[in-house]
């Protein structure tokens, strides 16, 4: 089972949340699939229309809730389906990475990459790389530290 086992190195398999924009990166992920590019099974993709939909609060929340890493994927700068969304993503990414690092969260745990619809291979490589990096870091936080919250009223 892919879950945050508490002991690093000892069969620890990180759980990584991936946000992918609908137009480029999700399509890139699809292409990786269509191309049958094999990759580690640690990532879970949430599709958003644009990487700029990913509010930093999502990243912070995911890490607080014990996920081991968050990867935000968007179109290459200049290729945004909405022309400029990924430029916002880039700024948020730059700032958030530094902030997280400042409070001692390894920068590998939050990454931003540009993956186009034709970059199935890049998607696969990115997943592989990020998974390895985070696997090497070990769990983001001990399970005892996090608490399940129902994200709202039913």
């Amino acid at each position: 089972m892919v879950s945050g086992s508490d002991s690093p190195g000892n069969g620890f398999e990180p759980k990584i949340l991936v946000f992918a924009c609908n137009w480029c990166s999700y399509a890139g992920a699809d292409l990786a699939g269509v191309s049958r590019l094999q990759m580690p099974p640690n990532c879970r993709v949430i599709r958003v229309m644009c990487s700029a939909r990913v509010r930093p609060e999502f990243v912070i929340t995911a890490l607080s809730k014990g996920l081991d890493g968050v990867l935000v994927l968007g179109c290459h700068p200049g290729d945004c389906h909405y022309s400029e969304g990924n430029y916002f993503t880039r700024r948020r990414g730059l700032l958030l990475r530094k902030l997280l690092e400042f409070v001692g969260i390894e920068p590998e745990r939050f990454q931003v990459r540009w993956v186009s619809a034709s970059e199935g291979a890049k998607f696969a490589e990115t997943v592989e790389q990020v998974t390895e990096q985070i696997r090497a870091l070990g769990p983001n936080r001990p399970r005892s530290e996090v608490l399940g919250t129902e994200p709202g009223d039913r």
Partner: protein
Amino acid sequence: MESQSVLVIGGGIAGIQASIDLANMGFEVYLVEKTPSIGGRMAQLDKTFPTNDCSMCILAPKMIECAGHERVHLLTYSDVVEMDGKAGDFRVTVLRKPRYVDVEKCTGCGECAEKCPRRVPDEFNVGLAKRKAAYLPFPQAVPRKMTIDAESCLYLTKGRCRVCEETCQAGAIDFEQQEELVELEVGAIVLATGFDPFDPGSLKEYGYGEIDNVITGLEYERLICASGPTGGHLERPSDGKVPGTIAFIQCVGSRDVNYKAYCSSVCCMHATKEAILANEHYPGLKSFIFYTDMRAVGKQFQEYIIRAREQYGVGYIRSRPGKITVNEETGNPVVWYDETIYGDAGDPERRVASMEVDLVVLCQALVPHSVHAEIAEKLGLMLDESGFIAIEDRLIRPVDTTVPGVFACGFCQGPQDIPDSVIQASAAAARVAEILAKKSKELEHA
């Protein structure tokens, strides 16, 4: 009032696209397809170049969109038997062949096929597999209705069996079904009858039909396809072994004045795609493509070739093999071809070389569909020398046939790939809209 209905003949990707566009433009569309399902040749493809999109994955939504459109009326398993009239006012008779299945009742569950005792070669899998006499041509078929093939059904040919009738919970089997003639009045006609593969058997030197491990491009396509008869396992015919080396021979019947003088346009990319797929499935597998000119002229095509060469190790050999023999011991085909070698002095020299491979794929010419000539005759259309539907004015009326009000798109009017076919399909829709608008407004023919 002129008819605002349109007849589209042929339910491949071009016919589907033309139907969807016309229906979206507000016309009532009658889409006549000869076989039990729309989808055409594209449905038989595993992947499409240059994106390697899974063909069915991008086609299936279109098929369903088309069939589900409120203004598209599907007439599958049907033939156009009579047509006359003129632009704005054609009368068409369509013969609906009996499926011997009541499509209102059939759920497409496949029980009848399961129980049907009669096995015949499966056209969809170009004969590489068997289907039953009661069948669904392929899993994603639209409409998803069973058909009983009158030519092979035991009951219909020999008068006994009717197992399907007993099996069908829905009571959909109906052996009483008769041919039905449907009369249509349409303002315009769009032809999208597509192509047939050329039978390479007539090129004796390549040994198709004689040498087990010499197959055609379309056969290969079904073999490599995950939904094909081998589940995507590339098994060569002689012994079911996965080939380690494959030779693709281009221009088989194409660019050859003895057969088809024209270039079939899609085979260079098709072979490249097949070679890429082979290597993707079996990373060690080595492919060689024997070509005359590598005609990769579309968007992202050159880049695809580069990837094939660099990433998938596809070998491109510029030579037209003279013959294919077989190594009786291994069953391996041997390709004989001219090659250029460089001597000690660096001087090139042509000599005959041979290459033993595990499998040979003949990328055969693609020829106008067999229904072509008949339909053309009924409509009084001219064909060009190669048998494609002739276009009156190539330059500014690229989809107009020689008869006003009749348009042709896709492979039936000349070899072309999917995007070009889709473009012509939409173009034909625009031309229909033009002439029907003009007709109804009594404007002069532009």
